[in-house]
């Protein structure tokens, strides 16, 4: 048995260390370890509750807006605020634009380099002027002896795409996607003030009273995104997923937990009944039985986390967050969230399996794709297309609201913090189900907890010793060459990890890998 440590695992958000045991060319055990702790939740205690939307927004600068959004929903409930339609739709547009930013960026800039033999570009023999320009660019970088940051890298393997035409096209799209992600942030900023780290979303609604020019500017930029997502992004994912990567897709490498959850998100009515992303839970892979979610069944374990056992219970409203660096047997400060005691996968694959849109289910069935790394990319791309199309109807709804005499964006009557209150903001953000939980006492924050998508997916073992979803997904992953653990990073990155979000993290010990094994 050989131990492989990958640290830092790059092209993710935050700091992540992966340790796996490999036997006979396959992973037999895995630990995922976050290596940073900022302590933002604890810092919020005792502060003006309205600060929470601004401060938690800064938890993550990639899924910018997500935490501010979830926080505002938790505060809305605690304050008793009812967000007017204008505020609700503008919030949705701000975050929707960031989905269009996050998903292609994840595919092209964070993941694609794991699947492409980028140097194959030099072999391109075609005559397409666009592709020739890409070839020229890469060849000149090579000639100048400076290919950073595209190298150094893991060696391409049997799953890597090596066809010069396909690779050259993909590199061209990598460059195009760089421009599109900047434009998506610009769209979001039209309503949000700026991106990353919008400032428009506050308790009770938003601060930006729009005019029609801003709405139409957003619409014209949305058209450009639709074109890119439909004809380039989704097309590329399908070309690769049903082409060179089909063996990886059909064997379901990186499958993981059979339990999936989505809180539902993007309300299209004020009552919150008509959600774009459906809410529900799948247990044991049974796609024909989607059950309703009960917030009370969410708990967090800390047996293997560098955390003091909470004296105040395990639910997000009550639990403590007190680091304990000396705790025996612990290996990470990611807490272990469980639903009804189960580890749960959240994110685009969970959302699509719960929503079951026909186009997506048809692709899965036609190519016999199993849940795993490739399926996650496909789900992510497919939901981006569904979302960008739906966003046009949100703009229509906003314009209709703007035409009414009492167009409102904010519940000004509930701006001051109440003496007491509590609330949960549970929604879907690019990486999955996000929950913010607040308790207010004496007009101040008494407790604040975030249970974030990456905490669900990158959870450690729970109190019963059951591995978290990614730890499960790594079991059985082929590592034919111990010097080149490329499949491991493919599986890990398919979850789009955001370790700065999963902020209960800490790397406990030292360089000494052996020490990690004591007490496991």
């Amino acid at each position: 048995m050989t131990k492989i440590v990958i640290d830092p695992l790059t092209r993710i958000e935050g700091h992540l260390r992966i340790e796996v045991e490999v036997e006979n060319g396959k992973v037999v055990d895995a630990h995922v370890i976050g290596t940073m702790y900022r302590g933002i939740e604890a810092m919020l205690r005792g502060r003006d509750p309205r600060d929470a939307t601004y401060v938690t927004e800064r938890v993550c600068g990639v899924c910018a807006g997500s935490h501010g959004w979830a926080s505002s929903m938790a505060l809305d409930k605690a304050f008793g605020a009812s967000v007017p339609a204008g505020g609700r739709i503008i919030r949705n547009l701000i975050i929707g634009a960031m989905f269009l930013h996050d998903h292609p960026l994840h595919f092209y800039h964070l993941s694609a380099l794991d699947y492409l033999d980028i140097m194959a570009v030099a072999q391109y023999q075609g005559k397409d002027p666009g592709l020739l320009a890409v070839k020229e660019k890469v060849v000149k970088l090579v000639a100048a002896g400076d290919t950073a940051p595209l190298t150094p890298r893991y060696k391409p393997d049997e799953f890597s795409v090596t066809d010069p035409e396909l690779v050259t096209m993909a590199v061209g799209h990598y460059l195009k996607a760089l421009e599109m992600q900047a434009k998506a942030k610009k769209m979001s900023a039209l309503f949000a003030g700026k991106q990353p780290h919008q400032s428009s979303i506050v308790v009770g609604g938003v601060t930006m009273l729009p005019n029609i020019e801003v709405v139409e500017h957003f619409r014209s930029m949305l058209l450009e995104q639709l074109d890119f997502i439909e004809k380039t992004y989704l097309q590329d994912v399908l070309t690769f997923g049903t082409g060179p990567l089909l063996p990886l897709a059909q064997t379901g490498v990186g499958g993981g937990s059979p339990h999936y959850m989505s809180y539902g998100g993007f309300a299209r009515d004020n009552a919150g009944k008509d959600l774009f992303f459906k809410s529900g839970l799948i247990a044991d892979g049974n796609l024909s039985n989607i059950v309703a979610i009960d917030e009370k069944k969410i708990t967090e374990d800390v047996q293997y986390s560098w955390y003091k056992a909470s004296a105040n219970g395990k639910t997000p409203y009550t639990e403590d967050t007190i680091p304990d660096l000396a705790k025996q047997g612990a290996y990470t400060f990611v807490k272990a969230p469980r639903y009804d005691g189960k580890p749960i996968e959240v994110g685009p694959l969970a959302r699509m399996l719960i929503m079951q849109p026909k186009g997506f289910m048809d692709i899965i069935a036609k190519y016999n794709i199993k849940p795993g790394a490739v399926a996650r990319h496909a789900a992510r791309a497919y939901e981006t297309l569904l979302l960008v199309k739906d966003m046009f109807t949100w703009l229509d709804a906003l314009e209709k609201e703007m035409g009414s005499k009492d167009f409102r964006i904010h519940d000004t009557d509930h701006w001051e913090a109440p003496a007491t209150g509590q609330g949960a903001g549970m929604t879907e953000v690019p990486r999955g189900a996000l929950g913010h939980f607040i308790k207010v006492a004496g007009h101040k924050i008494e407790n604040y907890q975030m249970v974030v998508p990456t905490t669900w997916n990158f959870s450690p073992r729970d109190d019963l010793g059951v591995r978290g979803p990614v730890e499960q997904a790594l079991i059985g992953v082929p590592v034919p060459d111990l010097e080149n653990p490329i499949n491991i990073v493919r599986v890990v990155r398919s979850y789009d990890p955001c370790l700065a979000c999963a902020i209960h993290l800490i790397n406990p010990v030292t360089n000494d890998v052996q020490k990690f094994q004591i007490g496991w």
Partner: protein
Amino acid sequence: MGNFDLLKVKGVSRRDFMKLIAATTAALGLPELFVPQAANALEQALKKPPVIWLEGMDCTGCTESAIATLNPSPAELILDMLSIRYHETIMAGSGNKSEEAYQEALKEKYILIVEGAIPSKEDRFCMVGGKPFRKILIEAAQKAQAIIAIGSCASEGAGIPGACATGAVGVGEILKAEGISTPLINLPCCPVKPTTLIGTLLYYLTYQKVPALDSQKRPVAFYGTLLHDNCPRRGHFEHGEFLKDWNDPIQKQYCLLLKGCKGPKTYTDCAQVWWNDNTNFCINAGSPCSGCSEKSFYKEFSPLYAKQENFDIPGLGPINADTVGPVIGGAAAVGLGIHLVATVASGRLKKDHKEGL
């Protein structure tokens, strides 16, 4: 191969390049006379300077902000302008491959960009590659030709992490503690403004020296003016018109002081150079300034959304927001007194700030 040829093969046209230089030179307040010189110097520099980009206790928001630029494009920034040898979020390699790239880069004359804060109390709060981030930073800082600390977390005061119990500090505090004399430029804001970062890089590459800095080591070119003095809503402040209801189209452009705006204490060019390709900025979106370019952010500026009980403007003494009076909607001015106070305040402030530089 001449250096401009090298530029060309990287896909940068001379026209684009000159446009960028002209814009940057203007932003830095240099006469146009400097443009050809700057272009020339940059062509020389465009063997692409090696860059090591470290991330500590961060959220990757500054990286995301840097690639939010549209002019130059993000591809020009990360592939053409700079040779980014180490950057965890964009580099191909992981684990030993990224370590390999890092060790190679350390041998060169690199610029060090730092994003995120550094835990000063407990090294284990931020570990990379099994090593304390603090120690990685110290090694890289000693060998760098210059250091650019980007965003509030890496700058003095350490932004939001600075308010947490981890003892988070900015790069400057570490350099001071370790006696490291490598030139440091702080570019606070949450996240860093892409225009500020690119402008500073171009200036440094052009003149091979750090631009004029203020007492917080921020380039005066970008942080030399008080937001309040340049605020598009300043007229409403002086007329005592303060926003109370975000739904009211009449109040839409009113001053945000009662919503907690920190503009009167914040030095930044946000009002002149907007974000995301000049699309918007907090105040234009109706959001009070949080003061994120100041070392007092966030700890001393909380609560963010409450009117300042004591607005202690230097040289004037406290302005209590209550003395500003309640807003009665419409254009009701609440008194000539406030107008005068504000004018005096701005005059004094400018004077004091200049003296402080």
